[in-house]
Every structure is written in structure tokens, then in C-alpha cells.
């Protein structure tokens, strides 16, 4: 049911009608003149600096407030200020919202508001749109003084029509001119207004958000933006023929917060009682530190920006050694630099939380884009045997909770813990239940009582490898931490026995941790044709794809791993219920059938989780992975599953 404008290319003089305090539709319930739908995917795409993301964030927030499930993904240009109207410079946002909980970005968009036509090309390449996607396109370029621009616009229109998009050219900028002399800076609120009308969002909520965001800049700015919002509402109502939509709200029991994964990490750090985050800026991890830098002092914490990642890690280790378990937040290149000190932390058993917000890789790669490529480096990056727990967040909620878990594991098991998240979670925004934080989430005050006589600094339990830890200040606990092979007394040792024992004790801690874990829950039936195994931010998309296939009667299930080292137990049993087991990942792998070369075939290099499962669970592990730089859509995964099922001759 595409939205159609009443009349093309007409800048009708729009007067305000939706008065503040009422929903843009003027009513709180679905009405006769509304189309009731389950969910919608909307994008706003523009040049960097035009505020598309801000508009989308407000739209997402008010949708959440209205009781919808929401998932937003930012479309981030890789450069600070890409030239305007550039294909690689698209800046924008996708909002998927609906009656149910939204867990991923979904498939193709239903409606796109674009402030110029060029920014759509990158999205098209990513298959963000399909036949029937409605484009509300700024029409001013049609009459641009520069003939090259006019030509580009015309060519693009042709292409869009050829792709089957429903294009509505609209003079949005012109309509804004009545309210602002610089529409480049206000058009985003106008667009928000349009969307508010189309999807019947509560205009009061939007105005409140505007107040909250622009309040600091003074009443005039607030008023102007609110006026633009209302103008957008009116414009849409007048210009668009179609009835607006109504998306029924969910029943939500818990109180909810709306935030992105990096903010959730920041909250997790605070909720874990971690007092110091020692970091060096790196995309896409930095915004977590920005968030913390602004609020950390509410809980008495401090962000230390070190001179580099090595120093950040050294500082965190020092802080942890002195009793205050610290956290360092980074991304791939930073993790690489921390390798040597991470080995020390494992060797000397220093508790510590290392968060790696993964990005496109290897090397500098795609700094702003999504990938899950650091799994093997997290497990095996250090020369020598350096066992350590590795966790991965699958949701924004996980970003908060697993940070708290990581701190607890770090201290209980006296070990650095790596928590993997990624660029998708980092900037994805979603409503999540508000956690009920209690005092026991916070780290307890450090123990400064005298150290128990006769207990040595590495008093390893023979079975679990665990040992209590003296904190500087504890009388009688004096010891010298070292990265050299050492005895229980932390004395430097050169003998075989000490070396082997130390290695064993550190390894045993992983086994001990594993013994506390339960098998992962199976999404779907316990028996079937195909089991999909995933980790990290692909959770929502995988489960949605599985649901679709199941709805069509396919015997597909999935499991999602939050613990990668040690792995959750029970995988062998789970896998044995399925004809085929495959991983789905966002990382590079050769095709499972191998690479053709000189007529023959060379065996393929598997994806990273598949490699781990082959080693740890054994048996045939199939895989599918790609590195598009953006999240997987449920449809992509669904297609792969169906292909695999066809191979199995079950479809």
C-alpha cells in the first residue's frame, strides 16, 4: 500500500493543525482512516550534517515510548565531512518498528525519505530496498542551476523507477523555507513531522524530545524546530493521499529504556562497580567512553584517556592489580596492540575486562562498519598458551549485563575477560527492560585486612586452578607479580614442573568456569534437519530467519553462543539432534566447497566459529559467512537456510 502524494511538485502552503498534546492523527486509537500494520521499516538518508540520524533517533524513541518494538541502525559515512551528494557519504538511519520486539534491522525498507538522490546508491548496493519501496525524494535537485546535478538527478530517477521503487518527488526544502532560512539545518525535523503523520506518532512526544535535545540552545531554536515538525505533519497530511498507518503497541510489563549498545556498555561498566575505564579513542568503541566521560562521575568513576592502547592496557592492569578491577574498551587495531600485555594479565592472573567493539577488518579495514572478525584473535592472539574467558554480546541488553558478568568472572577467576560486541550493537538503538541494580552488582570495597598467614599468593586449588589474591595494602600478603614463569609463591622459576603446573592451573580455570555454565537454549525444536549456530549481534536476524523457515514447516533450529571460551556445555548432544550443523557469521571464509584453482579445488578456510566448533565439538561443521560491512538481514539468512535444506533434499 504505497503512500502517494496528493499532487506532485506542489508546494502547498501548509498551516499547522495537529495541536501540541495530541497524536499527529489527533487520536489515540486506530481509526477508520488508518491502515493497521504489524511493523514497518523506514529510512532517512541524507548528506552528513543534515541531521538524518537525529530525526531517526527521535522517531525511534517516541515509537518505543508508544509501546512499539524498535530497532534502529545508523548509516555512518566513513569520513568526517564527505562532500555533499556523494554516494559513499550517505549519512542516515534505519528504524524498524512494530508491534513485537524488534531484534534486528530487518530486510528491505518500506519507506525512505531521501534528501538527495545520490545518497541512495550505497544503500541500494546493500540491497536495502526492493520493488515497491516508497521513496520520498527531495525534488529541488530537478531544478538545480548546475546541469550536471540535474542530469544526475534525472538518471537516478530513471534507475529508481527501473528498480521498481515508488518514487514521490517532494519539495521538502521549499516547504521548510517558510520557517527557516537555513533548511539544511532544520529539514530533519520537518522530515520527522512527515513521518509522525504517516505513522501516526504522538506529536507531543516529538515536541518533548525536541525540547530535551535543543533546550540548551535556547527557546528560539526549540520553537523553530517544533514549528518545522508541525509543518512536516501538515505537509504530509496534505500532500499524501494514502491513509496513515496504525501500529498497535505491545503489552510491556517492565519499564523500559531506549539506548544503543555502547551506552549499554557504559551503563554496564557503572553497574558493575568498575571505577576506571582506561582507553584510547578508536571507532566504533569510542562513543562508549564519550558516554561514560559525561556521566561516570555520578558513580565516582573516571575515564583515563591514555597515550596509546598499550598504555591504556598497562594502566588498567596496574589499577586492577591494586584492587580496582578496571576495564579497557577498544576495537580490533587496539586489541592487536594490547596483545602482549593481555598475555601478561593471563600469565599473572590479573582480573580485567577488555571490551572489543569489533569493526570491519583486517587492519584499519572498515572502521565504521560491522564485522565479527576478532573471535580467533581474542582466543589465540597471544604467543603461547593464554587461556581466558571470551564472551560475546548478542543484544543491547547483553552489552549491559555481560559487562557486569565479565567483571564478576574476572574477579572470581582472577583473569582478564574479553567481551566482544560489534559496530552493529554499538550504534543500534533498541528498547530494553530497565535492570534492577542492587548493591551486589557493584564490586565490593577492596579487602585491606591482613593476609592470612601461610597462604601463598597463588594458592592454586588443584582442581579448579582458583586462588585468592592479595591486594597491595594487605599486611603479610606482599608478593611480586611477574610475567615470568613462577611458583605458587610468585617466585621466578625455571624448572619444568613449575612451568607445566602454572600452565595447567591457568587452563583449569577455564574448565572450572565451564562447569558453572549451562547448555545454550535451543531456538526451535531439539531435533531437526538443520541447526544454525551463531554468536554476537546476528542473534535477532538468525532467529527471525529460522522463524520464517519454521513457519513454512522447515525443521530448522538455532543456538546462539554467548560464551566462546570456554564454550557452553552440551553442544555435542545438541548437534547430534540435527542432520546438519552450520554457523552463520559476518566474517570472511572461503566457500565450504573450497576454492577452484587451476582446474582443481583447494580446501576452503572456514569461518571463525566453525573452526572453533570443529576443534571443540568435532564432526562436520558447515558454515556460511560473508563480510558485507553491514548486518545480515533475516532474508539473506533465510535464503541460505533454504539453500542448505535443499541440499539436504528436505525442501
Amino acid at each position: 500500500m504505497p503512500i502517494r502524494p496528493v499532487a506532485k511538485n506542489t508546494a502547498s502552503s501548509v498551516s499547522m493543525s495537529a495541536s501540541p498534546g495530541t497524536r499527529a492523527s489527533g487520536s489515540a486509537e486506530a481509526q477508520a482512516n488508518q491502515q493497521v500494520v504489524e511493523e514497518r521499516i523506514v529510512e532517512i538518508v541524507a548528506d552528513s550534517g543534515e541531521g538524518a540520524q537525529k530525526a531517526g533517533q527521535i522517531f525511534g524513541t517516541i515509537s518505543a515510548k508508544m509501546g512499539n518494538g524498535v530497532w534502529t541502525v545508523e548509516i555512518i559515512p566513513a569520513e568526517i565531512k564527505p562532500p555533499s551528494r556523494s554516494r559513499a557519504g550517505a549519512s542516515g538511519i534505519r528504524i524498524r518498528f512494530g508491534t513485537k520486539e524488534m531484534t534486528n534491522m530487518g530486510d528491505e525498507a518500506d519507506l525512505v525519505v531521501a534528501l538527495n538522490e545520490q545518497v541512495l546508491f550505497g544503500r541500494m548496493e546493500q540491497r536495502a530496498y526492493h520493488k515497491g519501496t516508497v521513496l520520498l525524494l527531495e525534488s529541488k535537485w530537478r531544478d538545480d542551476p548546475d546541469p550536471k546535478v540535474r542530469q544526475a538527478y534525472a538518471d537516478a530517477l530513471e534507475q529508481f523507477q527501473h528498480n521498481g521503487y515508488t518514487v514521490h518527488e517532494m519539495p521538502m526544502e521549499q516547504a521548510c523555507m517558510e520557517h527557516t532560512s537555513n533548511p539544511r539545518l532544520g529539514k530533519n525535523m520537518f522530515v520527522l513531522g512527515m513521518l509522525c503523520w504517516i505513522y501516526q506518532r504522538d506529536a507531543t512526544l516529538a515536541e518533548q524530545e525536541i525540547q530535551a535535545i535543543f533546550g540548551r540552545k535556547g527557546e528560539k531554536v526549540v520553537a523553530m524546530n517544533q514549528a518545522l515538525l508541525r509543518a512536516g505533519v501538515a505537509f504530509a497530511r496534505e500532500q499524501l493521499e494514502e491513509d496513515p498507518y496504525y501500529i498497535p503497541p505491545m503489552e510491556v510489563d517492565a519499564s523500559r529504556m531506549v539506548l544503543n549498545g555502547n551506552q549499554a556498555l557504559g551503563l554496564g561498566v557503572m553497574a558493575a562497580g568498575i571505577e576506571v575505564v582506561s582507553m584510547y579513542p578508536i571507532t566504533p568503541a569510542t562513543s562508549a567512553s564519550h558516554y561514560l566521560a559525561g556521566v561516570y562521575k555520578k558513580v565516582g568513576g573516571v575515564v583515563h584517556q591514555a597515550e596509546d592502547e598499550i598504555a591504556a592496557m598497562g594502566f588498567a592492569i596496574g589499577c586492577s592489580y591494586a584492587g580496582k578491577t578496571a576495564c579497557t574498551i577498544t576495537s580490533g587495531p587496539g586489541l592487536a596492540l594490547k596483545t602482549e600485555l593481555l598475555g601478561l594479565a593471563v600469565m599473572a592472573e590479573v582480573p580485567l575486562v577488555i571490551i572489543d567493539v569489533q569493526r570491519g577488518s583486517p587492519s584499519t579495514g572498515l572502521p565504521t562498519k560491522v564485522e565479527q572478525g576478532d573471535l580467533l584473535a581474542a582466543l589465540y592472539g597471544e604467543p603461547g598458551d593464554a587461556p581466558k574467558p571470551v564472551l560475546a554480546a548478542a543484544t543491547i541488553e547483553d552489552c549491559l549485563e555481560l559487562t557486569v558478568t565479565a567483571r564478576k568472572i574476572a574477579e572470581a577467576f582472577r583473569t582478564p575477560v574479553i567481551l566482544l560486541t560489534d559496530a552493529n550493537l554499538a550504534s543500534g538503538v533498541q528498547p530494553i527492560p530497565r535492570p534492577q541494580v542492587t548493591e551486589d552488582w557493584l564490586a565490593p570495597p577492596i579487602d585491606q585486612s591482613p593476609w592470612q598467614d601461610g597462604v601463598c599468593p597463588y594458592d592454586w586449588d588443584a582442581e579448579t586452578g582458583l586462588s585468592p589474591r592479595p591486594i597491595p595494602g594487605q599486611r603479610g600478603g606482599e608478593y611480586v607479580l611477574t610475567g615470568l614463569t613462577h611458583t605458587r609463591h610468585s617466585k621466578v622459576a625455571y624448572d619444568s614442573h613449575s612451568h607445566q603446573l602454572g600452565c595447567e592451573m591457568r587452563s583449569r580455570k577455564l574448565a572450572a568456569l565451564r562447569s558453572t555454565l549451562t547448555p545454550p537454549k535451543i531456538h526451535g525444536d531439539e531435533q531437526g534437519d538443520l541447526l544454525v549456530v551463531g554468536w554476537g549481534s546476528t542473534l535477532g536476524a538468525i532467529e527471525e530467519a529460522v522463524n520464517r523457515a519454521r513457519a513454512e514447516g522447515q525443521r530448522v533450529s538455532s543456538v546462539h553462543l554467548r560464551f566462546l571460551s570456554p564454550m557452553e556445555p552440551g553442544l555435542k548432544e545438541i548437534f547430534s539432534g540435527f542432520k546438519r550443523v552450520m554457523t552463520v557469521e559476518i566474517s570472511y571464509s572461503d566457500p565450504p566447497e573450497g576454492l577452484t584453482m587451476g582446474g582443481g579445488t583447494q580446501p576452503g578456510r572456514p569461518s571463525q566459529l566453525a573452526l572453533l566448533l570443529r576443534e571443540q565439538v568435532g564432526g562436520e561443521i558447515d558454515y556460511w559467512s560473508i563480510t558485507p560491512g553491514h548486518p545480515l538481514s533475516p532474508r539473506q539468512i533465510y535464503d541460505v537456510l533454504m539453500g542448505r535444506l535443499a541440499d539436504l533434499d528436505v525442501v
Partner: protein
Amino acid sequence: MFGLKKDWSLDVLPRYFTFEDYEGGEARWCPGCGDFGVLTAVQRICRDKQIPPEKTVCVSGIGCSSRLPHYMHTYGFHGLHGRALPIACGIKSRRPDLTVWVATGDGDCCSIGAGHWIHAIRYNMDMVVMLFDNNIYGLTKMQTSPTTRRGFRTNTHPEGAWIPHLDPTAVTLGFTNVSFVARTVDWNPPHLYATLQKASEHRGMSFVHILQRCPHFTGKVFEELQQDPALTPLLTHDDGIQLDPDVAKIFPNHQVHDPSDHGAAMQMVERDDVVPIGLFFQDQSRPCYDEFMKQGLEMATEDKLRGLEQALDHFMI
């Protein structure tokens, strides 16, 4: 009366620490190694200042000199090559109650650790940094270090080190926010003691450049200085290192130098005929990053929980 305090109960130390209380395992340096003397000086200062061993942390990188923590009976952190300073700053960051000593070598600090060196000086956190400068990589057996003199033959430069050597005292004086720079020699224990003692009283990062003999690899490099104390003129000043007159007498050259005068320090350190020892520069007023890092340290749990609730509230819909 008789000048007694009103509260005239004696200040009896509940614990008294002897020199032995600071002695860790048997020190394993080569016979004649200058590191022994520095170890002794640190132990003596700890004893004289009666710093509880459990409140003391010795931090180091990797190298012969970086073994020092193992020989102290205090807390210790024998880190990685070049990383003593970030680790030490991390330790101090939330534990202002701990006394931190850093032992680092000319390779550890000035080569692999150079980036941290310049920044740790800027942070100016409260600790004593002892640079053991033996002009060589000792532990790995005689490779060129940044302080190796040009022409000196090493295992990596068998025809002589090639690049002009770096003077850690001079270079540190040029770093931003520097607050204490002194130079001393391991072979004059009273001067070494007095210098480290002064450093330990300084609020901020005190950088002490110690010329340290390594009979095993660079036996001769300080021989001349040792034999002719005229070559190590003594910097003197009321605000400088105070030496017993008997000891000061050993040095035929005394040079009055006001440690608050940075420009003069810069000139003093450039002299290439002699190697002055003593306090080059001190400025207690430089900002210490400790102040920043200790924010919120004393916050009560209830306040933290309240702050956390506020932060969560911010995202509520």
C-alpha cells in the same frame, strides 16, 4: 611546659620496621653491579621513612635493573619491557595511599618505553622513577641502548654504536609538565641516598637518572667519572640535595644551581665537559594527574547506586 605537646602521650609507632623488613630474596646481580647500591638505598629510605611494606609497591619493566622488585619485601610488579610507567600510574590511580617506586633501565625507559616516558612525565603522578642507566642492554647481553655512547662497541654494533646518545636528564627536562629531575651515581651511596630521599619527598613524579655501573658489559664507561670526582660537579643549593659536608668534600667542584630555574637547568645539562650531579629542577606547583584520577574515590555506595539510577533513568521512556 618544657615544650611538651598538650597531648603528651608519646607517639609510639605501633610497628617499627627494620632494614631487614624490606629485604626480599637474595639479589642476583653480577658482583660489583651498581644495582645493589640502589636497592640498598631504597630499602634504607623505606626504613627511615617507616613506610609499611604492605603500602609500598615497586614496579618495573624488564631488564637487569627491573629485577629490583623481587629483592624487596614489599608488593611488587615486575611488568613487561617498557611498560613500567603505565602500570605504575594505573596502580597509583585509585590508590593514593600506596607509595610507588619505579625501577626502569635505559632501554626499558628510553627505547621501548619512550612514548610512556614522555607522557608519564606529563601526568606527573606522585612516585619516584629510578632510571638505571648503565649505557647498555644488560639482561639481553650487550646491545646498544639509547644512552650508549657513539663508537662504543656492542653486540648489535660491533663497529661501535652509531647514533648520538641520548642524555635522559636533558631530555626529561624538555618534557611538558616535568616537576623533578635529578641525577646521581651509584658509586656514591650518600649522594644516591640523599637524592632518592629528596625524590621521595617530592609531590609528583620525581625522575632520578642514576649512572649505574655494569661491570659485566660496560665496566669502563664510568671509570673516569669514578676516578675523578671533579668530572661530576655537585649541584648545590638550599633547595637542592643536602649532603653531609664530609661527603660533599669528595667533590672538588661545587656548582650552585637553583632547582627552580628551568632555563639554568637546561644550560647546566648541556655542558659536555662534565656531568653535574644533583637536583636539576623541581617545581612542586605543577598539576598532578593524581588529583584528576582520584575523583569519586571516597564516594559512598548509596551515592553510587543513586547515581546509577539517575543514569538509567536518563534512558527511560
